């Protein structure tokens, strides 16, 4: 029995903060104050306790990897929104409003991915804590399909715009 943090997963009785006291596992000093504040925000503490009480603790590397995957999806969502904004500002169509047909779907796709990425993170975290297999995400297919559709739409609109003028 080593002193590894991973060894603390042996059972719920060994969890340091099963009661969910926000300050109990924050370490010391100012570093924990930000997290303590976050946990006191509406629905924050309740939600975090609920997930922490599910299953048993994970190898920390899995938690970190799951969090990085969420952040990567979130950045992809932000990139799509930025692409939509760029399309709105820099695409020049003769027919007024055509750029909206490109820009708005990009932004909406970004918003959908942002929402779905959180849901995917939570599903994965729960599955790992319960030692269940991870589910495949539909997000890569939606992202690929969405980008292909918007690219085709852009090409068709560019041809229509050229033919109309």
């Amino acid at each position, binding site marked *: 029995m*080593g*002193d*590894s*943090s*991973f*060894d*603390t997963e042996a059972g719920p009785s060994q969890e340091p903060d099963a009661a969910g006291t926000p300050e109990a*596992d*924050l*370490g010391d*000093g100012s*570093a*924990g104050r*930000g*997290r303590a504040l*976050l*946990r006191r*925000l509406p*629905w*924050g*503490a309740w*939600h*975090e306790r609920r*997930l*922490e009480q599910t299953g048993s*603790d*994970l190898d*920390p*590397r899995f*938690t*970190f990897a799951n*969090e*990085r995957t*969420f*952040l*990567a999806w*979130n*950045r992809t*969502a*932000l*990139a799509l*929104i*930025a692409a*939509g*904004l760029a399309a*709105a*500002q820099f695409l020049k169509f003769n027919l007024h409003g055509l750029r*909206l047909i490109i*820009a*708005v779907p990009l*932004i*909406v796709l*970004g*918003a959908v991915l*942002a*929402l779905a*990425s*959180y849901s995917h993170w*939570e599903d994965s*975290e729960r599955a790992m804590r319960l030692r269940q297999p991870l589910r495949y995400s539909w997000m890569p297919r939606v992202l690929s399909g969405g980008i292909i559709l918007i690219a085709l739409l852009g090409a068709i609109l560019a041809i229509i715009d050229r033919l109309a003028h």
Partner: protein
Amino acid sequence: MSTRGPGASTGDAGTHEPGRGHPTLAPDRTALAWTRSALNIAGSGVLIARAAFTADLDALGVASAIALALVALLTWHHGQTIYRDRGLEGGLAHHEPVALRWLTAATLLIGVVAIVVTVAI
């Protein structure tokens, strides 16, 4: 004041091999991921502000720029804070549903403002 990196206490004493469950460099990669997210948010703020000024929505542009600069700063700070916390706790990784939810909400808000500005241009 600790000078040890995250997870330093979880390694086996006297060896250079990380212990079982040691996060190795995962906290560093995660802190960098939070930093990249913060930079992305800052970049989105610049784009939204520029688009808002183009659409003559100056007030929205200024408000968005300030708000997103703050969100970017908070996101970066959160990444650094949890990096330090996880180090102090000996590599124990806490999931961060609250921070992730706020980041998701901020991204959705950015999307809504982006649509408003896009339609107004």
